[in-house]
């Protein structure tokens, strides 16, 4: 295996020699890599959001800190770290500290089952292919949905444990919105499952290989256009973003459920929101836009295609936020229950009929 | 692989904890929570036996038990809310006026 001289003796003494294959080490490295990448993507999103918002509003945005303002996220993080950590006296200390942890943990954990590349051998360093996915579960879609439904608790607990009217109302409204849109989210996922015929994200991406007529790729967005729209809408509502962010908007209920938070706890909520956006975009890419498939080089550099597609969806997210006006809360709930949910059910029925008739 | 009896013992312990909760606690919501513990213990038994007998029927019954538990929790909580509106209390002792 090519290990240096003294290592095999020490490892054999501990019984590790059977497990420490290069593949195992590569998998541990992959886990750390994904974690670091998610953190950096959240930091990058901060910059992208402010720059894109600025250009949409015909101004310049951050340009002082670093070249073209690229070090702005670093400045933001340092500012947040140095702020004083406050806690209201009447707040429930344990739950107050636990809530941002739950939000951040669920946001990161959901990405664990999302594949972002085909089998790669890292340019020949490891003998067999390493799938670019932290955990290959064959019920991957359901796991993403399950972890997304657990992130409601971070918000509910934040609202309640702050022991303040604004936080409680904001928290309850926000979580009611999330669980309402989870239904449409799940039904959109179910429609894709019917077409993709599998619960494993890797299988679904692999089925989107190839092209019709030579140039239209076999992405599911062409088979399920309405499903894609429903998924994106529900995803935006799930992450409390863009036109659906009434419960945490600055002009409304002070700041909703994170009114009483400051410094690193607030940073964790912030981080959780951006990482959730990245996860929703990544799952959308895998399900509807063909994942890491591309017209060329998709075997070893598929992750580049994946990155480009996720970046496109994230840009769409930011664009939505600064273009559309906000829905009022009752309009938002009405939209979720009376318009989006029936549409998702009809989409599912039509998809089922289509699959039955066309057989694919 | 842990033998089946261990799973059954665990399920029995959880069921007894749930039963104890229903008898002991004087808070309607905690009583409902204890009922949920009991239902989960039963689910565990079903899945363990399904696995031991090699059929998927255990998991299907668990599916139905979960659905019924959801319906029952929703209606039970609605009843608790309307009871609370009358007496402002969650203690079952508040509704003993028919006791002689």
């Amino acid at each position, binding site marked *: 295996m090519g290990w240096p001289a003294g290592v095999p003796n020490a490892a054999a003494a501990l019984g590790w020699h059977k497990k420490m294959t290069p593949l195992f080490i590569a998998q541990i490295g992959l886990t750390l890599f994904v974690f670091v990448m998610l953190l950096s993507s959240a930091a990058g999103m901060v910059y992208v959001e402010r720059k894109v918002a600025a250009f949409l509003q015909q101004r310049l945005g951050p340009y002082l800190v670093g070249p073209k303002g690229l070090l702005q996220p670093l400045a933001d993080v340092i500012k947040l770290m140095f702020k004083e950590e406050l806690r209201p006296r009447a707040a429930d200390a344990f739950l107050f500290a636990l809530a941002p942890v739950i939000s951040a943990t669920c946001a990161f954990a959901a990405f664990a089952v999302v594949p972002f590349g085909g089998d790669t051998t890292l340019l020949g360093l490891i003998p067999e292919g390493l799938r670019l996915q932290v955990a290959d579960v064959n019920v991957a879609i359901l796991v993403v949905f399950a972890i997304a439904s657990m992130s409601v*608790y971070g918000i509910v607990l934040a609202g309640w444990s702050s022991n303040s009217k604004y936080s*409680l109302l904001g928290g309850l409204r926000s979580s009611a919105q999330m669980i309402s849109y989870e239904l449409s989210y799940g039904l959109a996922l179910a429609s894709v499952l019917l077409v993709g015929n599998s619960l494993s994200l890797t299988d679904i991406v692999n089925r989107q290989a190839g092209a019709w007529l030579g140039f239209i790729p076999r992405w599911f967005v062409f088979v399920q256009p309405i499903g894609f729209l429903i998924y994106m809408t529900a995803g935006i509502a799930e992450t409390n973003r863009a036109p659906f962010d009434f419960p945490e908007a600055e002009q409304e209920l002070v700041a909703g459920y994170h009114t009483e938070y400051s410094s690193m706890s607030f940073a964790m909520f912030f981080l959780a929101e951006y990482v959730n956006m990245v996860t929703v975009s990544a799952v959308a890419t895998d399900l509807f836009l063909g994942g890491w498939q591309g017209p060329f080089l998709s075997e070893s550099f598929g992750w580049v295609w994946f990155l480009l597609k996720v970046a496109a969806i994230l840009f769409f997210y930011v664009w939505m936020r600064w273009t559309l006006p906000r829905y009022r809360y009752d309009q938002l709930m009405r939209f979720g229950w009376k318009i989006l949910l029936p549409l998702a059910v009809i989409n599912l029925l039509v998809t089922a009929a289509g699959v039955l008739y066309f057989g694919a | 692989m*842990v*033998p089946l009896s261990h799973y059954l013992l665990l399920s029995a312990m959880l069921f007894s904890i749930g039963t104890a909760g229903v008898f002991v606690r004087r808070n309607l919501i905690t009583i409902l929570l204890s009922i949920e513990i009991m239902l*989960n213990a039963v689910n*565990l038994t079903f899945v363990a036996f399904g*696995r031991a007998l090699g059929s998927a029927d255990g998991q299907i019954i668990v599916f139905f038990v*979960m659905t019924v538990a959801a319906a029952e929790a*929703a209606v039970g909580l609605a009843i608790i809310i309307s009871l609370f509106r009358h007496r402002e209390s969650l203690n079952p002792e508040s509704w003993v006026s028919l006791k002689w």
Partner: protein
Amino acid sequence: MTPFYLFAAIAVGASLLVIAQRNPVYSVLLLIASFGALSGLYVLLDAPFVAVIQIIVYAGAIMVLFLFVVMLLNAPHEDTEYDERVHPLLRPGPMRFGAGLAAALAVELWWALGRGGESGSFAGGSVTSVAAIGRSLFTDYAFPFEVTSILILVAMVGAVLLARREEPR
């Protein structure tokens, strides 16, 4: 230590704390922890679908409902003077019942573990595929499936009606 003992310890410990907590919010959160441990046990039993459904339905939906009700009612503790001083599990009634139950359980446990023998270890098997469950659900169990959907509809209507605020006349 196999994961079974870890998950079993978490499940039993969390359930015990559920019935011992005064604050209903902590009870709900501990029950969620117990459900998580049970979900892990389902994975060990080669039932990944049930494990994920447990998280989605029980921990992710039913418990959110409980939490909402606890927060909206601002659920008071069991609030008499006596209740504040003495912990719920230590009062004379529950203590006698609980002690009896615990003693009975300990005897049963000791007897059951002592029997050994027909411990029924699991046959080798594979992970139950979701396709198999789905096929069985929609063919053999199609009638209960449809009845369950009507049951949920009835429960929804009932819950909305029961919890509705009375209009002042």
